């Protein structure tokens, strides 16, 4: 059982034979090149903590936080050691003892609100120009003054003028006219699409409608809870899960679509684990909810069975497109082919990059609390994108988009970074 406490993971911890295989794939180890940054090191530390050889010391916490939750270790571990569950359990201990550092909590609380689209961020979006200046060639911002949490070199994303969900509010919840034969789809936005990339949300709705779906955007939806899980705040994540259940249960839906790899991974897998002890009834509801969740690319290709871009006529010039596999889509949900099929349908020329499944370094709040470290991981990704010579780097996660934009900007690479669904509507 996952998301459980460290002590219940004892036998999984002892499954680690200390072979060191994970050293070859762990991105945090790849940067630091020291054992505590590897999965083997972190697993050993958790064992040592359980055996009371060490306490929740600052050093322990530092090492446990140096993980981007990319699951590369798990994918390559010959003994199925659930490294991520182990690390999340350790972070739960840290959170329960009130030792999670403030900036982590702030990120999780700020973004992971129950009422996304109706809080302080709204104000922030209005006043951000005081603090930031726009970078001309990029859709990003550079800070004007020293700011806490904002690193000097960082290309900060611009908050949307109008948040995705709020924009919907002024219209109606329901996107298109009711037609019984259409597949009924609920759209789960997620924080990053809501606050920063509403364009991805719009593109998703467009494509879905063009593909013949009937789309609902429940306005009471909230954050998926992954930021809270990431810092070990299980109670917080539970509240969000319940809220989302209620928001989507109001409608009769066949599918729940998301264009965020991380949200999708959370909605599919983590909800069940979060609400595991809350009674059979709730379990059934979660089961029902999670079984409907689809990443937008798999929904389009597999469930709606689109065989060509629903948008005809290439108007924009044909570009070279490369694709980055988000950890939470490729390893988390096992989806690799569908986004590539969509890129093919878009009419652009596809060029595979070296190591497309390597983590971009975002790692949720890791990018904010360990900015330079995170960009160091990203450097390899940015270089791999650069060597393809692509004009467009496509991916399927707004978090990755944010991170890759920043990395390419710092390398001086001009390639556009987009979500795959934007490619099949960009042509419109």
């Amino acid at each position, binding site marked *: 059982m996952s998301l459980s406490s460290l002590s219940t993971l004892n036998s999984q911890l*002892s*499954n680690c*034979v*200390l*072979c*060191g*295989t994970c*050293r*070859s794939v762990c991105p945090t180890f790849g940067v630091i*090149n*020291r*054992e*505590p940054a590897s999965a083997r*090191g972190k697993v*050993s*530390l958790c064992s*040592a903590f359980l055996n009371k*050889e*060490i306490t929740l*010391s600052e*050093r*322990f916490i530092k*090492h446990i936080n140096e993980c981007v939750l990319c699951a590369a270790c798990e994918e390559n571990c*010959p*003994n*199925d050691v659930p490294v991520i569950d182990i690390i999340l359990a350790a972070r739960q201990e840290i959170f329960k003892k009130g030792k999670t550092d403030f900036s982590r909590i702030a990120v999780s609380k700020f973004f992971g609100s129950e009422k996304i689209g109706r809080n302080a961020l709204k104000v922030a979006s209005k006043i951000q120009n005081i603090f930031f200046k726009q970078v001309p060639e990029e859709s990003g911002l550079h800070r004007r003054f020293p700011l806490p949490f904002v690193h000097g070199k960082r290309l900060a994303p611009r908050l949307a003028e109008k948040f995705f969900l709020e924009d919907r509010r002024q219209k109606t919840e329901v996107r298109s006219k009711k037609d019984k034969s259409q597949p009924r789809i609920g759209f789960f936005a997620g924080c990053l699409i809501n606050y920063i990339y509403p364009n991805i949300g719009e593109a998703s709705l467009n494509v879905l409608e063009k593909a013949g779906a009937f789309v609902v955007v429940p306005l009471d939806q909230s954050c998926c809870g992954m930021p809270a899980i990431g810092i070990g705040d299980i109670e917080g994540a539970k509240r969000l899960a319940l809220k989302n259940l209620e928001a989507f249960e109001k409608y009769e839906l066949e599918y729940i679509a998301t264009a965020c790899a991380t949200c999708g991974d959370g909605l599919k897998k983590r909800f069940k684990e979060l609400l595991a002890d809350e009674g059979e009834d709730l379990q059934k509801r979660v089961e029902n909810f999670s079984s409907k969740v689809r990443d937008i690319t798999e929904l389009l290709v597999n469930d709606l069975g689109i065989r060509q871009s629903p948008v005809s006529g290439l108007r924009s010039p044909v570009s070279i497109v490369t694709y980055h596999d988000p950890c939470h889509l490729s390893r988390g949900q096992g989806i690799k082919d569908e986004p590539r099929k969509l890129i093919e349908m878009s009419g652009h020329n596809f060029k595979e990059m070296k190591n497309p499944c390597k983590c971009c370094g975002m790692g949720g709040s890791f990018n904010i609390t360990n900015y330079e470290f995170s960009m160091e991981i990203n450097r390899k990704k940015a270089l791999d994108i650069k060597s393809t010579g692509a004009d467009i780097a496509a991916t399927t996660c707004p978090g990755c988009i944010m991170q890759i934009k920043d990395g390419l900007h710092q390398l001086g690479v001009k390639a556009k970074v987009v979500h795959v669904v934007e490619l099949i509507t960009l042509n419109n």
Partner: protein
Amino acid sequence: MFSQNIIKELTNIVGRDNILTKREDLICYSYDATNQKFLPDVVVFPRGAEEISLILKMANFEDFPVIPRGAGSGFSGGSLPVEGGVVVSLERMNRILNIDTENLTAVVEPGVVTGEFQAEVESLGLFYPPDPSSLKFCTIGGNVAECAGGPRAVKYGVTKDYVLGLEVVLPTGETINTGAQTLKGVVGYDLTKLFVGSEGTLGIVTKIILKLLPLPATTKTMLAAFPDMKNAARAASSIISSKIIPSTMEFIDKNCVKCVEDYLNIGLPIDTDAILLIETDGDKDLAEKEADAMRKICLDNSAIEVKTAKDKREVKELWKARRAISPSLKKLNPDKINEDIVVPRNKIPDAIAGIQKIAEKYNLTIANFGHAGDGNIHVNVMIDKSNKDELSNAQKAVEEIFKLTLNLGGTISGEHGIGISKMPYIGMELSPAAIDVMKRVKQVFDPKGILNPGKIFPKGRE
């Protein structure tokens, strides 16, 4: 034992960012792949020979143990600080210093990861053959110290066949160079060969000059399944005696096949008793001719099926499976006593039959895989250490397996080294006089016994 003064001095040598003394960090340098733990007192990350020299001089003066460490993937406990002391991690010394495409040589620092080095030279059309299954994470320094080998040994030899020269810091602190950049060289004793396989007990290697080969044009990969281990072993022997040298010839028994198939699900034939994974490389026509001949030999020895890998992806999958065997065996039983005996190649069938008998006699699960091409068998006695009877039976079984190996004209370790794991058995193979001269060699290099103490030779008289 570790005074603040020593720590201060060490800090002065390597710099504040390159020394660890907190318990949390020491724990991460207390283990290797033997799954045993010994806490060091300090871990340092030196940048080069000069710093290491200062550390070793200080160790002689202050009398503390120094333990070199690569990736900590060793199977005999070589990098474990069994008596505490300072672990010298070579993780920071990980630069490829030079690849000479005209003379086909390269110079590397010891912390370079073997597989990364291979990828680098292959991108230049060159080839560094030694391929321990741990190649994706082990270091070349660790390979040199253990004289690591791999599947390609049957055709290409092991690490020692590629080391032309070394820069080594002696335990007393002097830095020496051995060998030369050239393929030949007979000036003085061959210290290079002495250091290779010395398990970090005679000096700390700080630079390695390696020999490279041209990258073979093609590689053919085949998988043959046999109804019985005896057939597989016979097929392997007949391939060699028909004067074909495959570039690899690995055998995998059914226990091992089950464990990796369970992990990877790539469709390995799990209902057979044994698999041979065979490769041949070189000129395209020749490789194909050899592949055909080997396929025929397998079928003549009752192979149920012989499949050729269709593309690079299939080859990659097969090798991923092969390399995952050792760590995945945990599925059979929680603890593993792993031995890597070698017998003359034509004695493999006898060795396997003998091991099977021993397994039955002691009622143990023994999983075997290894390098049929060079007679190296990885014998894994899978037990639950908390079961005291099983543990003592396993120890008896291991001793019998060693006796069997030596009777067949073999050796008790092909590539993993002695370290602490095989220390009690060294006397079974080596005469007292041989052990004595080795100890005297150690004494000459390391009079105070500060470098990697407690390894290879059991304390006291044997």
